[in-house]
């Protein structure tokens, strides 16, 4: 920090510099502290985003920068919204987001509920369960392709140990591949929902349960009238975070299935990367990116409003 103070002092001219720093008003200090953050975010997030919006109205191709750029109006948008392929990618994304949320909420809440019984050693097991979500999604994708190998894969071996499924390939099969990515994501991110639910469960004051005991409310009734409603805002927060992340999902799925077989697991972000960096349809992919961003942003905002209503109850 001294570095900053000294640098500023130097700016003020030698001699009375230090004294000037000393007398700087709180308002000035506030701006000096905040400005670098805002400038960096504007330069590396907002400026590129605006550029993307501009490119989405042009026929620009990033691999041919010398070509004359033409303004094409909303043609890119019309082409995307009218394309049947795009609906397929969006359906694949919806399948992925919907089912991962379902499994993660059920498993995550269940685990949190069990851990909240505070059996001996629960803290250590919680830390162990949390490990998968801290790992690099791309690397997770890579090593699951190994676990899913039809012959040598441990996953297939374990499945065959319980049911006679014969030779099958999770990531090479049109019907199974969409479930393979759901399975791996659930393995990785259930702990996330679990941690947040656990915080929710711990936030319920004991006296509420004590009052319910006095009223002789059954365990079942206590669960539905106390536990679930009070954890609900936390659960919804977890779904918000995971929902946004999974809607943008790229790294894990690219490494696991790279969108295949066919385009059964080609999620929106994967298609976006193909259009942008393999086919170099920059204008088209920019329009698609804008559509996706507006969707996430819009849905997230509506969702937060609902979340606040739930919390007020």
């Amino acid at each position, binding site marked *: 920090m001294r570095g900053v103070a000294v640098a500023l002092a130097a700016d003020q001219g030698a001699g009375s510099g230090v004294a000037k720093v000393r007398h700087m008003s709180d308002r000035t200090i506030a701006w000096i502290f905040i400005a670098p953050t805002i400038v*960096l975010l504007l330069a590396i997030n907002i400026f590129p985003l605006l550029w993307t919006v501009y490119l989405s109205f042009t026929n620009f191709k990033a691999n041919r920068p010398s070509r004359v750029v033409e303004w094409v109006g909303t043609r890119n948008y019309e082409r995307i919204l009218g394309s049947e392929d795009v609906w397929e990618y969006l359906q694949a994304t919806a399948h992925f987001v919907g089912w991962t949320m379902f499994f993660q909420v059920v498993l995550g809440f269940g685990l949190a509920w069990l851990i909240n019984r505070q059996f001996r050693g629960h803290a250590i097991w919680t830390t162990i369960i949390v490990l998968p979500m*801290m*790992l690099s999604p791309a*690397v997770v994708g890579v090593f699951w392709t*190994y676990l899913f190998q039809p*012959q040598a894969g441990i996953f297939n071996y374990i499945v065959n140990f319980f049911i006679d499924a014969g030779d099958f390939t999770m990531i090479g099969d049109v019907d199974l591949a969409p479930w393979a990515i759901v399975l791996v994501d659930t393995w990785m991110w259930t702990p996330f929902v679990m941690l*947040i639910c656990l915080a929710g469960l711990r936030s319920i004051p004991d006296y509420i349960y004590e009052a319910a005991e006095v009223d002789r409310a059954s365990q079942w009734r206590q669960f539905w009238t106390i536990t679930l409603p009070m954890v609900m805002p936390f659960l919804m927060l977890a779904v918000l975070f995971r929902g*946004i992340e999974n809607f943008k999902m790229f790294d894990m799925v690219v490494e696991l299935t790279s969108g295949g077989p066919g385009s059964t697991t080609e999620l929106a972000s994967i298609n976006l990367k193909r259009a942008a960096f393999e086919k170099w349809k920059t204008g088209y992919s*920019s329009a698609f990116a804008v559509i996706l961003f507006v969707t996430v942003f819009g849905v997230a905002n509506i969702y*937060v409003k609902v979340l606040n209503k739930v919390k007020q109850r």
Partner: protein
Amino acid sequence: MTAAAASGAASGDNARSVVEPSTLSRWLAAVLVIGYALVALIPLVWIVLTGFKTPSDAIAYPPKVTFDASLEGYVNLFTNRSRQPPEYMASLPPAETWYDTLVRKRNMVITGPSRFAGRYWNSLIIGFGSTFLAVFLGTLAAYAFSRFKVPAKDDLLFFILSTRMMPPIAVAIPIYLMYRTLGLSDTHLGMILLYTAVNLSLAVWLLKGFMDEIPKEYEEAALTDGYSRFQAFWKVVLPQAKTGIASTAIFCLIFAWNEYAFALLLTSGRAQTAPPFIPIIIGEGGLDWPAVGAGTTLFLLPVVIFTVLLRKHLLRGITFGAVRK
């Protein structure tokens, strides 16, 4: 999401009470949770084990749980090798090192180091560089947001958070074009700046939460004692925010360490990090699984250690400070 941030509060301990669960239900809970944990651990344990297998053991059917440990995967990870005819192998002087011996058993010789060490080093430079910058800038901004009257404070904070909602690919093309113009493509500096920008939202939000918890009275006392604002910040607030800064740093480091999409699209040689490299460790006839296992193990190890260190602040980190306990 700003509103959601308020849901933090809530008491932590669930101390002893009349509604304590019965012994039986605790037992049942323990069995189920430990069961889940063990099943969830299988993939991780398996990939670590694979790093110590020979290539033939790694693709054996049925999968081998017990095997003779070998360091071949690690040797293959760090070296480039080429296959030689038996006559040439016989003409070589005796192997000098244990890894030479290991490689020669496969009728191969080491031709030089592989690119893995370089990629790992890039991950370290970019990870630590961007973490330092994000935490430095984040600490300043968080302090200002926490202590001063800033016009449109909530809007600014929400703006900072919303930068995180963007799909990385959506901004990748303009960043790619911008970096090409500025000469930042495939450089450490370019990647450090990029990851700093991505991590800043997390750093500001987390650190603001930590700083809000430090009582203002300490600084006010220091200010009346004749400290300047900078001195009060440096000598009073920063030491108290130490834990918060450390855990924020670890979260930023883990993110930068794990990041894949930008690294894949914006780097190729000089500044490529490990995540886009691990998937392309090719052996003879497909991926060299023991080498992939070894690379994965070395790559995941720091994150596992940090996770254990960080376990008390995990929840806070993953929810941007929205849930505190």
